[in-house]
């Protein structure tokens, strides 16, 4: 890389809890690639789903405050691992272009927010700013023999006008990264389908059905594991996999990785730094198989 890559880093609330391993692995991978992430000082919740279901100006106020914090760091772009945070931050920036709305939001804040900074996902900067070919060069432990499907979920690149990233129906960013890491990527036909999202709480049956279908399909195409880029998708597929099995009478034992975890492994980072142990469905068999393949190749 010619130019050092510097970004403000907005972890989002789930990074402090349910998706700790996403946060850990994102930081570890970026550090290994000399991508500088500086935490947004005194960051707060983006508003998540509850805020905008109640009031759009409240939601945007929460996000706008964080964008303003980024602006005060003197950086012009911010990254977040979570697509849901990303959607809120981007929506706020977009809505604030309307003067009437901007006034309403600024009224809720201590001082008018500067929302001009761009926000991108960790996935987007790795693909667009760092580049697949540069990632390929850094691989020390290729994921030989890992048959994996890439699952993007429904909000990572939608609505297209707002997210401005990858193909709407057929994104390839993670597929391409996995291929660069040496994995065998099977085209996952439901890559942009909904997992049921936060319906896991009020209507668990919806998640059982939708996420169940994702697992069935992944199994059907011969995937050993799925990779995701979204805390909610990962949680539904991983943490709820047992519930899904019970509800649907299935027997899935499919590890659900964050793509940054697999990247970290291929870059030779220790499992501990990547939070591999925090996954609910044990990836041991899959990881052992990769190691065995590597040894066989070496021998």
């Amino acid at each position, binding site marked *: 890389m010619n130019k050092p890559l510097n970004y403000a880093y907005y972890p989002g609330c789930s990074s402090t809890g349910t998706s700790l391993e996403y946060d850990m692995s994102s930081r570890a991978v970026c550090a290994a690639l000399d991508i500088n992430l500086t935490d947004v000082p005194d960051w707060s919740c983006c508003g998540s789903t509850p805020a905008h279901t109640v009031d759009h100006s409240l939601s945007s106020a929460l996000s706008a405050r964080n964008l303003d914090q980024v602006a005060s760091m003197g950086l012009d772009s911010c990254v977040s691992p979570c697509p849901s945070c990303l959607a809120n931050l981007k929506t706020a920036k977009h809505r604030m272009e309307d003067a009437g709305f901007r006034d309403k939001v600024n009224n809720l804040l201590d001082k008018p927010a500067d929302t001009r900074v761009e926000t991108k996902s960790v996935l987007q900067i790795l693909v667009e700013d760092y580049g697949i070919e540069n990632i390929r060069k850094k691989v020390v432990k290729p994921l030989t023999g890992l048959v994996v499907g890439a699952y993007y979920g429904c909000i990572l690149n939608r609505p297209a006008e707002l997210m401005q990233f990858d*193909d*709407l*129906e*057929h994104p390839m960013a993670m597929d391409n990264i996995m291929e660069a890491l040496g994995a065998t990527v099977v*085209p996952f*036909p*439901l890559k942009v*389908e909904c997992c049921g999202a936060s319906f896991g709480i009020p209507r668990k049956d919806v998640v059982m059905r939708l996420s169940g279908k994702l697992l069935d*399909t992944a199994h*059907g195409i011969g995937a050993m594991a799925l990779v995701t880029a979204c805390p909610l998708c990962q949680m539904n597929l991983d943490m709820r996999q047992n519930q899904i099995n019970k509800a649907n009478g299935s027997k899935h034992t499919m590890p659900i990785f964050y793509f940054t975890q697999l990247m970290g492994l291929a870059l030779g980072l220790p499992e501990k730094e990547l939070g591999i142990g925090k996954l609910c469905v044990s990836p041991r068999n899959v990881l052992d198989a990769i190691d065995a393949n590597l040894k066989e190749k070496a021998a």
Partner: protein
Amino acid sequence: MKIGVFVCHCGSNIEATVDTAAVAAASREFPDVVFATDTMYTCSEPGQDEIVAAIKEHNLGGVVVASCTPRMHEQTFRRTVERAGLNRYLFEMANIREHVSWIGKDRESNTNKSVDLVRMATEKLMRNRPLYSKKFDINKRVLVIGGGVAGIQAALDCADGGLEVVMVEKAPTIGGKMAKLDKTFPTVDCSSCILGPRMVDVAQHPNITLYAYSEIEEINGYVGNFEIKVKKKATYVDWDSCTGCGICMEKCPSKKATDTFNEGIGKTTAINIPFPQAIPKKAKIDPDFCTKIQKGKCGVCAKLCPSGCINYEMQDEFVTEKVGAIVTATGFDLFDWSIYGEYGAGRYPDVITSLQYERMLSASGPTGGHIKRPSDGKEPKNVVFIQCVGSRDKSVGRPYCSGFCCMYTAKQAILTKDHLPDSQSYVFYMDIRAIGKLYDEFTRRAMEEYDTKYIRGRVSMIYPQGDRLLVRGADTLMGAQVEVDADLVVLAVGAEAAAGAGELAEKLRISYDSYGFYMEGHPKLKPVETNTAGVYLAGACQGPKDIPSSVGQGSAAAAKVLGLFSKDQLESDPQVSVVDIKRCIGCGKCIQTCPFGAIKEMEFRGMAKADVIETICQGCGICTSTCPQGAVQLQHFTDNQILSEVNALCRF
């Protein structure tokens, strides 16, 4: 000049928002106006008679009609004043409908604006001079561009009417899309049985010269005397001696060439004849796939050809043809559906287009008329048809209806059941548009007798599941989501303007709409004319059309050509530029700017002067604004006439 003014109500079209009586009253005050009145329908017989009577009674020297656009009725009124003995150019029209009543609501302002427009017209009329047309000979040959069913019909009708016809077809064979179809709705009769003989007629007709695998390079001239430069693309086979025996095709080792005729279902050889019934039945080499041309190795066909036709060095060739009229019948092309990510954007081999399916259904097609899945060659059980792919969809810039997809989908569903009695067809549709004779009955048959399941709604996603495809969509009548396991998905892709339609339009100097379809002279009254004299339209190049309508237009265009050629001479338009040689300093600027090459240099008493060739000048007026001396004047639109109009408008 004594001038009469007639202000038209156009029923209520004008009168509703313009006080026509007040306009007439105001006109009476203009210099030279001796008579002014308002009338209900000036263009009607009593309306025209009133003009004739007024000319006689008041001894008028010129007439102004304030009514609709000159494109509508200028010719009508010119003939009217001529009937009363005036020169047709001693007439002016003020457009107070399109330019006033239809666009403004305020009656008072509209009335004032109408008065201004009439004032301009009278001022110009005072400076009008009688102009006289000259007669010129016409060349009674006709060029037909495009050899689809519409072009074939036009060519045969013209040829049977005794005209010499030149047909230029871009593809190596004529027949267009219809030649690729298996059967045709609503009668389910075999497409090649009805089209084949007509294609043969084209080949055998003594009056028709066919240039297949050729394109229009250049068009010059004007109605009655066009000069056409045709590019005959290199075929690498001497067509004069090729007998179409096909031996070359049997032995050519390069078998991976794109099979355009079969819409990419299967491959063909580098040297190929598109299909056994092709007209002309001649071989051509696809240079991209010929190893001799690409790498200098092989040459098998040259060794085997019994007639010695192969020439690997062949170059494009140009020929010139002279004709008096042109019928454009370049048809349509299919929408590139790969923009639809939800249908797989081309990733799934068992999602095919309707035209590919026609080739599969056709007994002479690449699968011998057997329906097979491209992926594994298996017979499908469930076939899903999706209508309106690239039609009626603003999000992909195709808001219009392609017209024939509802019908051919019903046909394909019926044929599917005929071929595979155990199969089940599903059709996702938005609306069923079956407005032709016997059409609604036909789609009903597909549902009722052939048990096709029609689902009203759009498909949101197609994805593979095992070796089948899962088609998910909405059933808007049930208000439910539906999922169908499909073995084969057929997309009813919409029609779009033929590739290169825009470039051809520029050469023909005709207009086209924002989608590239050619514009007819008038949407109701001039369906096959264009705004360029001597150029006519037939078939789907004007807009999506099924076979009956395309053929109907082919015949209509032929009738127009035969009508045009019923005279031996045409009258030239006297509204052309004239050079005043006293003023002309011979700078030659007009010669450079005239887009039609209508001005040449001549010598007058040893001095260079510009000279306009009347028959070539189109009256565009570009030269008049170029000439630094004001020496070139466009008749009927001289500087003085235009300035008098401006002065009439800017009086204060």
